[in-house]
């Protein structure tokens, strides 16, 4: 992590953490991953080819929201402690949402009125 910034003279600060900082916002939130996992195996689309991603975006870990260069690296990742921890977390109860917060505050379910359009 962190690219080189050659113009910087202080040895400690020669690396930039800009990418790491930006990447923080690109990872999916816990609730988004959980929702996707709840969708089930069958509805999932095949992974699209993306040349910007490692391994053309073909080797993906859904739980950790990470792409890998090839199947071997991905399978290695499946064995890691971090992945297993994540797996356990995703099996547990659904992550906290705004709806949970509202119900805890003593509000009822949202009232959206009657359906206007019948599909």
């Amino acid at each position, binding site marked *: 992590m962190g690219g080189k910034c050659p113009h910087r003279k202080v040895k400690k600060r020669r690396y930039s953490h800009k990418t790491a900082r930006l990447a923080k916002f*690109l990872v999916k*939130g816990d609730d988004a991953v959980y929702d996707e996992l709840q969708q089930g195996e069958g509805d999932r689309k095949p992974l699209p080819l993306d040349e910007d991603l490692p391994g053309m975006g073909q080797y993906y870990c859904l739980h950790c929201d990470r792409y890998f260069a090839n199947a071997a690296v991905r399978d290695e990742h499946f064995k890691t402690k971090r992945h297993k921890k994540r797996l356990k977390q995703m099996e547990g*109860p659904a992550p*906290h949402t705004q709806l949970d917060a509202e119900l805890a505050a003593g509000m009822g379910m949202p*009232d959206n009125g009657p359906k206007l359009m019948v599909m």
Partner: protein
Amino acid sequence: MRLEKCWFCSSTIYPGHGIQFVRNDAKIFRFCRSKCHKNFKMKRNPRKVKWTKAYRRLHGKDMTQDATFEFERKRNRPERYDRNVTENTLKAIKKIDKVRVDREARHHAQRMKGKKAQLLREAAKELDQSIHMVKAPAALQQEPSLTLPKI
């Protein structure tokens, strides 16, 4: 004007208060104060933080099921303004709030029942077990008139 609820602690956010975070996938997270915002950034789970409403609800500290919870809702449809309806609503708010506060007080009283007796029992046990800290056992034996007060 809409009174929102804090994502973390479920308290009401009045206009002009708190901060909101919009995630890359357009999900909105509202926070009532920097305390809640910081806790969110630390990725804490509100269900595991004791001072949040979510925790208190989950662990039976607060009332969970009540008919008064059905009144306050997020209504995602426009309401045509009607003076009479508004007047009645304002009247009802006071009444419903009173009912809810009373029920909450009753729930709290129910929950705290037997607490005083338990504290007394624990205190008596502590006194019994650690009397040697106050009076040396030898001194107690020399003067048998020194006895523990009965609780």
